């Protein structure tokens, strides 16, 4: 065993399941989101104490944010593929229109609801067919279909408002069960379903593979086209489900101009929840928490008398910062270091990085030696001394070499300048 360790070759840890580490768990993105949620709550408590503890406030806040929740869940799957769907709001309105028309003509409520969700799924299949089988980019298809679906609604409804909807629509959006909003319960149940679908089922794992590398997925025997089509159909069906929440929230009426901008909110929530728009990264928990954050944030800013349009600015900045934070990490720091400390010299950077790694390995060996009980004191001391000396010499060598290279670089630059000046 000890022989292996002394070779200093970093052996890649191939075990997929890493043990539970509290320190890692506490800085994971989901936990950061929870901290943000708590922070918003604290701000709300600090500024509007009476209102916050008044009965019904928290329920109202949560209810106000729940009308996009099915869209968020569907959007996770779409983003997982590396695609995007901006037609969800139009599809949602289309589905509500179908339900509304069915109910208006006197059909039983349940048929109307099923037909509405079916219509949503059909719209999704339309998108999916063009994206998967014709190979058109998802952005373009869904921009076009968002015009198309809303256009169809405009043609059919014109300026009329549909008002006949099943009574349970408003019940879903506005009632509490034992102090918990019914919409939140439904959201969490659906969320659990999506956790199972995405993280535990074979279908969900396929999505991760396709999102990371579609070509690789194709060669490993996954029917990419079919999977994409299914995901878009699921998204469409979720739009149909969202129409229940949305119409209920709107008090049981629908017109052709409602719900614009919901697609952007849904995408923003997913991105805030840590789902990568490049595909293949993200979990369901993040967006679920982000939905709540968005609800609390909108409500808090509203209470702080920030008007709707300034809230947009905040939403925009949060979106950008949320995406930037994971981007700013190591890569950017390394490039900054290269530019300012190492003066753009890659040799110096490589030397420094290598030395740092060696020093780290030596320090680890010192720590090991200190713990080692099999050695007697003098041996231990000598071993530690040896390692420390080595560290010292390494660092000195590195510093010397860095200075040498920097001086060389400066001289080169000087020479180049002189040459240009001579010309």
């Amino acid at each position, binding site marked *: 065993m000890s022989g292996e360790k002394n070779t200093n070759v970093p052996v890649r840890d191939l075990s997929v399941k890493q043990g539970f580490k509290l320190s890692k768990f506490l800085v994971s993105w989901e936990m950061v989101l929870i901290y943000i949620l708590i922070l918003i709550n604290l701000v709300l408590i600090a500024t509007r104490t009476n209102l916050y503890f008044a009965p019904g406030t928290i329920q109202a806040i949560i209810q106000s944010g729940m009308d996009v929740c099915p869209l968020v869940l569907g959007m996770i799957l779409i983003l997982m593929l590396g695609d995007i769907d901006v037609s969800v709001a139009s599809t949602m309105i289309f589905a509500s229109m179908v339900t509304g028309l069915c109910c208006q003509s006197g059909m039983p409520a349940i048929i109307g609801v099923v037909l509405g969700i079916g219509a949503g799924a059909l719209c999704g299949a339309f998108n999916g067919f063009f994206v998967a089988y014709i190979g058109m980019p998802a*952005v373009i298809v869904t921009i076009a279909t968002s015009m198309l679906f809303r256009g169809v609604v405009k043609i059919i409804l014109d300026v009329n408002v549909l008002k006949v909807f099943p009574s349970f629509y408003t019940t879903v959006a506005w009632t509490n069960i034992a102090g918990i909003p019914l919409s939140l319960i439904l959201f969490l149940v659906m969320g659990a379903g999506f956790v199972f679908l995405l993280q535990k089922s074979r279908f969900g794992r396929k999505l991760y593979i396709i999102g990371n590398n579609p070509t690789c997925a194709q060669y490993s025997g996954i029917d990419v086209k079919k999977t994409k089509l299914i995901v878009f159909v699921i998204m469409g069906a979720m739009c149909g489900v969202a129409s229940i929440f949305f119409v209920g929230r709107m008090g049981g009426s629908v017109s052709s101009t409602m719900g614009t901008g919901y697609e952007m909110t849904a995408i923003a929530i997913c991105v805030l929840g840590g789902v990568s728009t490049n595909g293949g990264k993200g979990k369901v928990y993040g967006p679920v928490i982000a939905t709540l954050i968005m609800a609390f944030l909108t409500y808090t800013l509203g209470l702080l008398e920030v*008007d709707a349009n300034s809230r947009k600015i905040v939403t925009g900045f949060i979106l950008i910062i949320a995406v930037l934070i994971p981007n700013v990490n190591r890569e950017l720091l390394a490039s900054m270091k290269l530019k300012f400390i190492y003066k753009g010299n890659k040799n110096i950077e490589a030397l420094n990085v290598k030395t740092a790694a060696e020093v780290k390995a030596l320090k680890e060996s010192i720590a090991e030696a200190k713990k080692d009980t099999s050695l007697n004191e003098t041996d231990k001391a000598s071993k530690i001394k040896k390692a420390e000396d080595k560290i010292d010499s390494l660092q000195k060598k590195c510093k010397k070499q860095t200075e040498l290279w920097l001086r060389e670089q400066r001289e080169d630059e000087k020479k180049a300048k002189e040459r240009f000046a001579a010309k």
Partner: protein
Amino acid sequence: MNKNKSMVSKITESRNFGLVLGLVVLLIVARIITPSMYSVNSIINMLQNNAVYGLLAVGEMMVIITAGIDISIGATLSLTGVVCCRLMAENPGVPGIVWLLLALVIGALCGAFNGILVGYFKMVPMIATLGTMYIFRGFSFLFSGGQWWFPHQFTEGYMAFATKKIAGLPSILWILIIVFVLAIIFLGYTTKGRRIYAIGTNKESSQVAGIKEAKVVFLAMTLCGMLAGLSGMLYTANYATCSYMIGDAYEMTAIAICILGGVSIVGGKGKVDGVIIGFLMMAVITYFISLLPGLSVWSDAIQGAIIIAAVALNKFTERSAEKRALKERSALI
């Protein structure tokens, strides 16, 4: 074998042939249904009211060629329009050219912000511009204070940039023509313009060739923002009204024009002449629909259907071209 192609087959196989054919068919149909469309005045009117889309589409094209997308241009248009209108209404004595330059500067700043996010911080263009769309639209509202501006507040010098007739054409069309010509020169014949194509076609190889991706993306997005700012000023000057709500969903129309004009959304492909034809098509379609009684509710659906049809057609022609190329190659072997 390729060199000896006849003139006719060269024309029929070019990208723009289908577009021009579509445009001609559209014009004939329009001629039959609404004869009133074909007076010089109404055509100029149609182009004048759609000129803003043309400006936006040229900017959007540059961004799409770098394999990005900019959905904040509608908000940029609104922000510049509001800022210019407010300052113009407060300082009526200032000559109009100042507002034009101000609009260019504000637009360029908005575009540069996008460019920094996408180019230097490597954010996904869709998401970055989605965020900035919210931000610009919000600032537009803050700066306007929810106020509207009406024709009596607009100075002559300001409106002249859109409506003053020079040689029979309103000046907004002259500006549009100048922008088209400049874009053709920039994208076709300058090093920086060719670099935009290089980045869009293949990022890795263009980086190996010494092109800095971040700089090129930054340049493209700044130019796009600049054109959006210009169109914001011209939009308010043309209609002589302004509020923070202008330019809503204009980015979608601009993208639609680009796609109709054969700009590939995955980057690297697209020319200004295609965008000009796409712009003419979109103008004719919207004008045609607005002339037919009772059809105005159809406009969204028809636009959406046309985009899907255009892109699907594009895909099929690409595939058949690939097949033909394969056949020719196998014949050589």
